[in-house]
């Protein structure tokens, strides 16, 4: 195997990491857009954007700029954790709806 690439690395940042660009390997719009949305919901985030620099390279760049010199890594981690909670909430909602059983169902005929 070639050099193992790290999942996420810092491309550029200010000294205190309040403004930074991260490069995430093997991710795409699937994570990028949701992550950008969740970061933008954080009131401490001044700016967040992402891009897929080239379609044949499976990486995304995420730019985060924070207010008041707050840490962009903290914001990134909390955004990821919040997204995880959204997934859980959707899963719970789905299972709850399944239990309620108010939908057309397929019946197996023998």
């Amino acid at each position, binding site marked *: 195997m070639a050099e193992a690439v*790290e999942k996420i690395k810092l491309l550029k940042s200010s000294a205190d990491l309040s403004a930074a660009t991260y490069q995430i390997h093997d991710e795409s719009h699937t994570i990028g857009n949701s992550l950008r949305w969740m970061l933008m919901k954080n009131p401490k985030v001044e700016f967040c954007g992402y891009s897929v620099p080239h379609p044949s390279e499976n990486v995304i760049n995420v730019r985060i700029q924070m207010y008041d010199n707050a840490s962009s890594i903290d914001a990134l981690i909390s955004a990821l954790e919040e997204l995880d909670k959204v997934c859980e909430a959707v899963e719970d909602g789905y299972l709850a*709806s399944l239990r309620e059983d108010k939908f057309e169902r397929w019946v197996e005929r023998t």
Partner: protein
Amino acid sequence: MQSNEDLEPTVRIRELKKDRVNFVLGNVDLAFANSLRRVMMADIPTVAIDMVEIETNTTVLPDEFIAHRLGMIPLISTNCDEAMRYTRGIAKEHAKFSPCSAVSFEYDPYNKLRHTTYWYETDIKGEWPLSENAKEEEAPRDDEPFDFNAKPNKFYFEVETDGSLGPQEVVMKGLAELQTKLANLILGLKSGPEHDMVANDVTVNGHGPAIDNPWTGGATWTSPANTSATTGWGGSTSPSRGGGASSSWSSQPTPSGGGGGWGTGANAGWGSPERRSNGWNV
């Protein structure tokens, strides 16, 4: 405007059949709904025929034609991510690995948000029939002004599978896959010594040696992401292709036997040297 976003996400299943599930996802952002759609279509591992060796072919179809069609056969893939080590794939690698034959995804059936522009000859309403999902929403008044702050809030999904996985499994695995992706990132970030970075008085562009070492050199930083199953699929070719040279198929009746590409690779993980020197990726 704010009120919608602060509510818990809702899911309402409208129909569940053998091969499809139809549900309405509410109180999430378009970005998240789209992530779920993408992950269900392209990131769920399934099993499919991936290598075919044809000894004689007396049919009218060429070999690769048959091999391709064999690959398209949906094989039951329940829990293949846990039960199997090599012969799985995801749709990013080849579309045959997608468990979904179709995922329909709709929001804003009245186009109140103007995310699309209808082509028409004389009259939009007459020429574009409303979707069934329009019954779920309130029709706009004719004189309703455009609300440029409005955001989509209800997403109508129909996940139709090809039979390799059940519709339930696809939704659950899709969410789990999304969570795995997030967990990998959190793991990557948390095992990266970010506190050192702040403490070490980093240079302005963030590329000083003090910062480079902990990020690139730390074993804890790189290894967890690579051992997990999901990241393994992303970049490299499927191990079954890379290492499973035709000789190991024919000469090794038991896959666990030593010596062949399959046998030695079994415990070594994705990029075992044995497999590469034996197979095509030398």
